[in-house]
């Protein structure tokens, strides 16, 4: 049995209790039946459940979370997962077990993954630094020079990354010193929104690589409303935002519709729709009367009207705009939807095991459609943030700025949990803000940020690798890589 289900089960069971209490007596029997069937099936289909419950969630990572659950829940869960569960040996001191559980916790493994990625990034920075290469030439004569050069290159790059992302110590007062942090939040805003869209799709077992297309059509729709219809602000801004959301939702909904109706694979559909959106928007941007600024020859739209621009929330000195507040609300909304609503429960049920959900009476096809539309809308929100917040001076076909793809890494890093995505978005926003500062100050190409980001996600996706690097014994006490256990009896049953 994959221990990861263990984390899922106490949660779903807790929810069941709540739902049971709330729902009328007549429904109770049905609800129980539904969830029993889903849980039974998730146990028998480990492959599907692993992929769906969190695409990169590692098995052991979830284990301590489950242990933290209340005794009663644990007992219920224990029955189902008993076989794969690690049993600490009796003669082992309790401190060792506690330490091991901490070391296998998701936070520690995440921190270690970030650390390893930064070290590899540092090696790359050092290797490509000209001073380091020079001093390496006479390494045996004066090794001190070499290490000094390495230290200068790496610490210089990372400290300018920090100063560009969090706090600039070179400024006199706090107000200007803290500006990098507000930049970070500005960069994080669309990343979080798009990450939520990708993460929501993950939870339903769908892979949304269509961020670019969804962002482009959403930005085009919001931008079109934003520059062509003069209205008072209190109505213009909401209408523009809603237009963008609707466009993104339609672009995502096409994928859900085709997948539900024809069984086409959403990865291919989203990739193809990215290109279609790109060429469609490019065409509209160079055609008078559609999106192109009147009288212009550049493929660019006119600037947004004042009334459609998201206002700055910290005053004109900072770039941070009201979009950040919207994104915080969106994160809370997605959290509520996934964890507290019956729609969210159906989403997760389909994501955990579509066959079981179907048997239990969930309309899987319409769930795919609605989930993709919702995911498209959330990614569309990122496009709206770009056009109405970050670059209101006009839309180009590069408005997505790679956020659609970055969002995938954000969602993976956040383990598809709304607040995890929020934190991951801020981290990657910091990378973005700091990366440009680093390039300007130290001449280290901003592309290194992409390398570090993708390494973080790779390492987080494979906890056994991180454990092997740091010699951390896995949760069952073995130093060896823990094989991902499957309950073979259940599979054959």
């Amino acid at each position, binding site marked *: 049995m994959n221990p990861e289900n263990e984390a899922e089960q106490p949660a779903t069971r807790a929810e069941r209790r709540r739902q049971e209490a709330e729902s009328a007596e007549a429904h109770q029997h049905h609800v129980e039946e539904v969830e029993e069937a889903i849980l039974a099936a998730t146990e028998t*289909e480990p*492959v*599907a459940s*692993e*992929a*769906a419950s969190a*695409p*990169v969630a590692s098995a052991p990572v979830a284990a301590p979370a489950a242990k933290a659950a209340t005794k009663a829940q644990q007992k219920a869960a224990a029955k189902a997962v008993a076989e794969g569960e690690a049993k600490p040996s009796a003669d082992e001191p309790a401190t060792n077990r506690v330490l091991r559980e901490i070391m296998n916790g998701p936070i520690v493994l995440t921190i270690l993954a970030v650390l390893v990625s930064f070290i590899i990034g540092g090696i*790359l920075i050092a290797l*490509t630094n000209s001073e380091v290469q020079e001093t390496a030439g006479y390494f045996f004569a004066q090794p001190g020079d070499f290490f000094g050069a390495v230290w200068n290159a790496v610490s210089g790059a990372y400290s300018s990354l920090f100063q560009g992302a969090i706090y600039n110590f070179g400024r006199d007062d706090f107000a200007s010193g803290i500006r990098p942090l507000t930049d970070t939040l500005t960069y994080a805003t669309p990343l979080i929104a798009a990450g939520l869209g990708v993460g929501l799709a993950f939870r339903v*077992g*769908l*892979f949304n*690589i269509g961020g670019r297309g969804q962002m482009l059509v959403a930005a085009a729709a919001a931008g079109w409303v934003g520059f062509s219809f003069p209205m008072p602000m209190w109505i213009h801004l909401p209408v523009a935002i809603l237009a963008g959301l609707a466009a993104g939702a339609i672009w995502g909904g096409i994928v859900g519709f*085709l*997948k539900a*109706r*024809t*069984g*086409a*694979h*959403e*990865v*291919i*559909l989203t*990739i*193809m*729709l990215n*290109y*279609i959106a790109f*060429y*469609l928007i*490019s*065409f509209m941007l160079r055609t008078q009367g559609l999106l192109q600024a009147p009288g212009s020859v550049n493929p660019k739209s006119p600037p947004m009207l004042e009334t459609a621009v998201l206002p700055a929330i910290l005053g004109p000195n900072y770039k941070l705009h009201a979009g950040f507040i919207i994104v915080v609300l969106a994160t809370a909304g997605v959290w509520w939807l996934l964890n507290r609503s019956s729609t969210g429960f159906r989403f997760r049920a389909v*994501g955990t*095991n*579509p*066959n079981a959900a*179907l048997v239990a009476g969930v309309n*899987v096809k319409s769930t*795919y459609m609605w989930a993709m539309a919702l995911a498209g809308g959330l990614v569309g929100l990122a496009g709206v943030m770009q056009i109405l917040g970050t670059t209101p001076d006009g839309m180009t076909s590069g408005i997505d700025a790679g956020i659609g*793809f970055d969002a*995938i*890494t954000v969602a*993976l890093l956040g383990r598809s949990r709304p607040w995890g995505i929020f934190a991951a978005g801020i981290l990657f926003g910091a990378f973005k803000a700091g990366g440009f500062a680093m390039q300007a100050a130290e001449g280290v*190409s901003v*592309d*290194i*940020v*992409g*390398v570090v*980001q*993708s*390494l973080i996600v*790779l390492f987080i*996706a*494979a906890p*056994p690798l991180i454990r092997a690097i740091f010699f951390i014994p896995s949760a069952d006490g073995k130093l060896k890589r823990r094989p*991902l256990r499957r309950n*073979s009896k259940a599979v054959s049953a």
Partner: protein
Amino acid sequence: MSAHNNNGVVTPAADAAISEVLEKKELRSWKAAIALGVFSLVSILLFLVFPRHGETGFRWSNKDDLISLPTWNTDAALTGQVVTVLLIILTAVVVWATLKTGTLIPRTRRIIVTAAVIVFAVAFMVAFLAWAMVGNNVPVTGLLLGTVSLSVPLIFGAMGGVISERVGVVNVAIEGQLLAGAFCSAMVASLTGSPWVGLLAAMVAGVLVSFVLAAFAIKYLVDQVIVGVVLNVLVTGLTSFLYSSVLTKDAATLNTAPRLSPVAIPGLSEIPVIGPVLFNQSALVYVMYIVVALVFLGLFKTRWGLRLRAVGEHPKAADTVGINVARTRFWNVSLAGAIAGLGGAYFTLVSVGSFQKEMVAGAGFIALAAVIFGRWDPIRATLAALLFGFASNLQNVLAAVGSPVPSEFMLMLPYVVTILAVAGLVGQSVGPAASGKPYIKG
């Protein structure tokens, strides 16, 4: 990858029942008829409602060719009318054949439909070119030559994709393999001065990307699509970083690759139209012919191919008869990386002569689309890649003469066609059964 399970509502028993039904009674499929009907309407609209008047020439050979064919001049409007009538007749034939499903011998019916579709496609293309290029000459040879040039990396990538997916590992990292191949071949070829060493380096680079994909997908059981996507980001970041911090600093020695020049095959290259298109190409293109042939023969005629397909379709069965699933997957994914890496070398060693940031520009994703469009078959995937190459080259040619169709819509065409293909209009695309699913022994 959970998504592969989604349509798995059909139990094996139900599956067997369906195939039984299929054997007894042929299902009537209106897909081909509907598709032809739609294109007939398009041709009525383009050639009859909005005809363009004037002459269009189809130029079959260049001036200095040994055997020179006369340019074929046609009246665009007349061609459009004739072709439209032909298209309507062909549509009627397909409708008739579809209605006769069950009474006609299945094989005969299939031949009729396939032939009708092929004639339809060629006729539509001729009329479309005549319509779009009124007053100009259509350089047929140039059009096809450009098609092959643009398709080469796609075909290499698609072959890598076919092998990898047939063995059960979804290869979204084709883009990364192409890019790594392009980068390493440019750098190594510049340093050594030999494009051949560059080709070797491209293969090694592709294999290295594959190693990461294989290790994470097979050993650590990470979702294969996720690894692929992240690898693309990683390779893009890595090559861009090294490009701006290493290659640009000394471009003369590090990023000035010797190019592979076209080699004419004596005799064959003198054949009109086909000769200059297929047999006056760089060595890498000839390597491509061999690779496609080998992949096709290897997959379907050798023990290696049988084992590979067994592992991709039913790893448990393969394991039961003693095939090491993990090892088979690992080495074949590596092989796929080597082939895709060669495709990357085409960008630097044949097309451009140096590495540029993100120069692959989505070719890997188009190759992936070609794999699915070609239904995981090497020959069909090659044809799909050629179709994509043709569409983008057609756009180039039309843009040069100022075509009436906005170039963006021509560029969009391959992607729309792919969506129609995977959505089942052209035929159901069903991949290898176990593709994307990790295999856990035990």
